[in-house]
């Protein structure tokens, strides 16, 4: 009996592995996506191991050493130092931590709420529930996301956490819209009709029949959006509505360094390149996932 059970579990694992192998084959046909994934893994490792690999971990916080302020890139400070003498490389490494954290928190707040509202709006297509959800969504979509996030952030105390809240609030409508359109088109498919005729629960129909069909577009959009969310977080920090000094946020560093352009270029260029790199990596990975899930357009 136990042996039989083991065989069954083994078979299930083998099936899962075959599915993954097929997905990886499709993904790896795009060599740029593989490059993006490698870069992303490196960035992730860098951020995770920041205290161990940053040359001057103490420079991530409030630290001043005016004797070494504004030094150009050298052997001791690969990316140079900023106006109060902190190592830019160390701060970029720690900056990735906050950027990735912001991206993850924003999307884990915005995606589930947007998806659930989109499923409801799409499923109750033609009823007051759809009207209510989708008109509210339209109002949010009518305002440019950065402007909306800025105005929400401006109402709250400027810090990293409130910046995340502000960005999430301007982000869910896009997921709501995406899932709504997929759900509305699946709603009259016969497999959904069949589940209704069988008497399956609403929860089953929404989350087991419809949601798996939205998975591809959602995953693709999530990876593409990670980069944009990070960018938006940096933008809020840049204008002073996000993370506050001395937090080593890439946006704050940009704002700081921009005052000393072009002479002390290193304290601006390196954080900027860091932002470009993470966004590019997420976009390349998103492209690869689009091929895996064969999503038409997100």
């Amino acid at each position, binding site marked *: 009996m136990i042996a039989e059970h083991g065989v069954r579990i083994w078979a299930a694992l083998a099936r899962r592995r075959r599915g993954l192998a097929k997905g990886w084959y499709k993904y790896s046909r795009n060599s740029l996506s593989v490059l993006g994934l490698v870069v992303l893994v490196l960035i992730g490792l860098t951020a995770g191991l920041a205290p161990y690999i940053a040359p001057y971990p103490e420079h991530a916080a409030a630290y001043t050493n005016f004797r070494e302020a504004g030094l150009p890139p050298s052997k001791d400070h690969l990316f140079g130092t900023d106006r109060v003498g902190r190592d830019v490389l160390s701060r970029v490494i720690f900056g990735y931590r906050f950027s990735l954290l912001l991206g993850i928190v924003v999307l884990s707040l915005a995606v589930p709420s947007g998806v659930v509202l989109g499923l409801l709006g799409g499923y109750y297509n033609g009823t007051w529930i759809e009207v209510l959800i989708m008109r509210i969504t339209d109002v949010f979509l009518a305002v440019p996301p950065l402007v909306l996030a800025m105005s929400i952030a401006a109402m709250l105390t400027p810090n990293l956490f409130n910046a995340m809240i502000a960005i999430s609030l301007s982000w869910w409508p896009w997921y709501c819209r995406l899932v709504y359109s997929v759900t509305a088109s699946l709603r009259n498919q016969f497999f959904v009709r069949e589940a209704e005729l069988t008497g399956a629960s609403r929860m089953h129909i929404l989350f*087991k029949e419809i949601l798996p069909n939205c998975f591809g577009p959602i995953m693709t959009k999530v990876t593409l959006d990670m980069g944009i969310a990070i960018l938006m977080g940096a933008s809020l920090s840049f204008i002073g509505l996000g993370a506050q000094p001395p937090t080593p946020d890439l946006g704050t560093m940009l704002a700081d360094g921009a005052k000393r352009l072009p002479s002390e270029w290193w304290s601006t260029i390196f954080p900027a390149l860091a932002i470009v790199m993470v966004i590019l990596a997420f976009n390349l990975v998103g492209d690869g996932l689009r091929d895996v899930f064969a999503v038409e357009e997100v």
Partner: protein
Amino acid sequence: MADPILSVERLKKHFPTKLGLVKAVDGISLSVAAGETIGLVGESGSGKTTVAQCIVGIYPPTDGEIRFRGQPISRELRKRSKDLKREIRIVFQDPGSSLNPKRTISQILSVPLKVHRNARGRSRTAMIRNLLEMVELPPDEYLHKYPQSIGGGEKQMVAIARALATSPSFVVLDEPTSALDVSVQAKIINLLLELQTKLSLTYLFITHDLSLMRNVATRVAIMYLGKICEVAPTVEFFRNPLHPYTKMLLSSIPVVSEEEKALKPAKILSRGEIPSPVNVPPGCSFHLRCPMKMEICSEADPEMVEVEPDHLARCHLLSRRS
């Protein structure tokens, strides 16, 4: 007819559209005896699928009544009892869209078992295996496949297994074979007939394929523009068709041999196409295409008359004779 399992009385389903009111089903009455296969035949646009969808509860009918085992059943699906959902099942025309592409065969078949038979774990797996064996698909091979990796005929087998999973007594087959290859069609039909005797099922078989009905149905009903124009037991129907439209349909079945040709009624040339159900002609809806048109046909809609026992037709030629 004694104790029909399902009867439909003056069923109407009208859809309001921008072009006007579409009278998809316009007052049909039909009763189905337990254990029989009634073939509901008509051209596309005749409303036969709408009848099926009203019976299973996809659309609430505009008017009329549906009775199951003598009891009137609600028009709206959410007011129908769980037991009724278990008893009346449907197999859709296109198995491609009736099976969820993101769920495995085993997951698909587990839904009705979970809802209606409260089956879990090992006993559910055993039931799923039984169902697959019943439709002649080896369970080990198909259990974990996704619908897109199996053929059209096999998909339809899975859809049939899903319909039978609740052990229903009445199954609506909405053109179950018209999306499939001819070779697969025969296999599915044979399986359906086998299962019918084994599980004592009653079928409402919806199709546009009249020649198929000769082998499958016990009774045939012909629909035209939302109305039934002739109902008769199959043998009687093919031997002595009464309505001009039925005659037209029968004479347009393609034949290959002389013997088959001898069975057919006199050739009536098929002409015109089914008019739009938005703009139903006044009087008898068939009069624009009818070769035996009389003056009265464009003025009054004929009543259904029982010409011979169990053989009903709706035509002025017949009303006059009786």
